[in-house]
């Protein structure tokens, strides 16, 4: 297979596989956070802050995968 074909497939695979984990992680964080808010609506403000922070951490991993895919494609 030609190098360009391989690099296209590699870029696509990098981001596709790299987004699976973070997608699960963000879903779980969101569900636990919403569960906590549902059980104690007054604590919604206190739960929200760390939840957004944790979601940003999880999303950062998928961004690393995206950057690798972009590097493969464009460099």
């Amino acid at each position, binding site marked *: 297979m030609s190098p360009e074909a391989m690099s296209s497939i590699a870029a696509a695979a990098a981001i596709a596989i790299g987004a699976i984990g973070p997608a699960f992680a963000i879903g779980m964080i969101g569900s636990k956070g919403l569960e906590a808010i549902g059980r104690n609506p007054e604590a919604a403000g206190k739960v929200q802050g760390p939840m*957004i922070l944790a979601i*940003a951490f999880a999303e950062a991993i998928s961004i690393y995968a995206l950057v690798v895919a972009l*590097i493969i494609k464009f460099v």
Partner: protein
Amino acid sequence: MEISLAAEKIMHIGSFPITNAMLTSWIGAAILIVISILATRKMKMIPSGWQNTYETVIEMLLNMANSVIGDMKATKKYFPLVATLFLFIISNNWLGLIPGVGTIGLHETVHGKDILVPLFRSGNADLNMTLALAVTTVLAIQIFGIAAIGAIKYGKKFLNFSNPIMFIVGLLELIGEISRIISFSFRLFGNVFAGEVLLTVIAFIVPYIAPLPFYGLEIFVGFIQALVFTMLALVFIKSAITDHEEHEETQPAHAH
């Protein structure tokens, strides 16, 4: 449709190259400075106009910083860096969405072929910029920590000779500190650059109506990334200035 991972150089001052992301971030900084000057001349006790809006923004940031750090006196010490990070990052992100950024390019240089070199590009879409912000933040966190609890106590967090397990834990902490530079810079760069690429591709495929929800997403992402950078910096500052040996009633979020 050209997408370049590295920010393109548009001119040279002497032998120092100036990239388009640098130019855009200068424009963003100039806008922030002009707004600050407008808001702080002839200050009144009961604010109105520019001063009022600016005070609202600063007060919201101060409350957010205080909710993480807890002690208002300490918050005011660390507030200038944190607020500057937020305002600078959000202005860079949102400036990248203005029509013309990324599309107006005066040069059509021949690099073997004719390509358009954009004059403007979102400031944070350049890895150099986000790396600089990350290194500055992590260095500042170390300096704040040493200033707050002393060099010996701060060094004990990383070089802990009490028993072999704690020594390894200390080494891992050190590696974690350095990995924060990479995580900070790549999170911000990846989000902003990917957003730019997304908008370019969507506008290329369907120029009318379809890019609108993606512009909304990019405005939101720009705000969230500034918020996340600031909140993470605050959380790490809080963790650095806390003396872990004493028994504190509020455990700072121990983040990686």
